[in-house]
């Protein structure tokens, strides 16, 4: 193999590796987000469309990490919850109807994050049980009313199990075990942690990095 050929191969390898991290999804339009420069995010208690009543508190307890580590001030979720409660608002559906003006007046937040949980829990099937949590998020500028970002994410216990093809009996046995493990260990809450991270941490098509992050302003520019 000639040195030139080796060089070409090396460059090709580097090009492939360098693009490997990027996704092929269509790039999100961040025009409004970039213009708004939000510093703080008020996460309201998530609206829960699943049958599991634990879902809203479960997801709410996980939102601080991804947003704060992405560089934003995140309002204390328990204190926010308690503040609404003391004003007679206990249902997330009611809380989501509070006006932007009122939210800005009480919390002084730059933005509000509305979360809706569409799936939370274990679905029992004949061959496998699947614990899945799916949620959508919408970030709105409280100063202008502009929607800055919309996204959704899902996570499931089936992701890492793969299809090992152990035959139908092996799969049935596995299904029985899965159901016990999934219900006993509050599997839904664990999966919700992964969903929250995927939904709310800065990443391609996710929210942009905020001012408290060393990566602020370094998000890839729109092409």
């Amino acid at each position, binding site marked *: 193999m000639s040195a030139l050929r080796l060089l070409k191969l*090396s460059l090709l*390898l580097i090009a492939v590796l360098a693009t490997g991290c990027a996704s092929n999804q269509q790039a999100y339009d961040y025009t409004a987000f970039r213009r708004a420069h939000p510093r703080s995010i008020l996460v309201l208690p998530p609206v829960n469309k699943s049958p599991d009543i634990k879902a809203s508190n479960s997801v709410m307890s*996980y939102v*601080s*990490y991804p947003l704060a580590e992405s560089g934003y001030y995140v309002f204390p979720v*328990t*204190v926010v919850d308690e503040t609404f409660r003391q004003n007679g608002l206990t249902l997330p559906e009611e809380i989501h109807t509070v006006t932007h003006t009122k939210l800005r007046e*009480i919390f*002084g937040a730059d933005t509000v994050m509305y979360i809706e949980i569409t799936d939370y829990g274990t679905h029992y099937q004949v061959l496998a049980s699947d614990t899945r949590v799916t949620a959508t998020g919408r970030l709105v500028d409280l100063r202008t009313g502009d929607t800055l970002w919309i996204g959704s994410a899902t996570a499931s216990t089936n992701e890492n199990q793969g299809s090992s093809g152990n035959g139908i009996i092996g799969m049935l046995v596995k299904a029985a075990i899965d159901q016990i493990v999934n219900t006993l260990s509050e599997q839904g809450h664990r999966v919700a942690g992964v969903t929250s991270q995927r939904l709310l941490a800065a990443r391609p098509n996710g929210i942009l990095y905020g001012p408290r992050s060393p990566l602020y302003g370094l998000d890839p520019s729109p092409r």
Partner: protein
Amino acid sequence: MTRSFFGGLLLVGVLLVGGCATRTPTLYYWGDYQPQLYAYLKNEGTSHAEQILALQKVIEGAKAANKSVPPGFHAHLGLLQISEGKPELARMELEAEKTLFPESAVFMDFLLVKLAGGKSR
């Protein structure tokens, strides 16, 4: 010369592969903060006094790691102190939140006014 050049290219390739998996250190020390938030929101299992003790361990961990506790931490601790009937400790926590994170000033002032009004003196 050519050998070191190819070696260099290989190194760049390795760095790029590693780049996908690189984890930057966290901005804050989290410890058990989020599990404690869940414990509070669920309102079952541990008492507020036990939750305060758990959060004080997080503060110790943060000091040892030389990092700040996350946004909301001191305000949450303040909320627990209010529920334990300790408004003076609560006030200190709300002030700490405001000092650490000025973005919280409007909300903390709102809570501090309520706290002062609720005190029986």
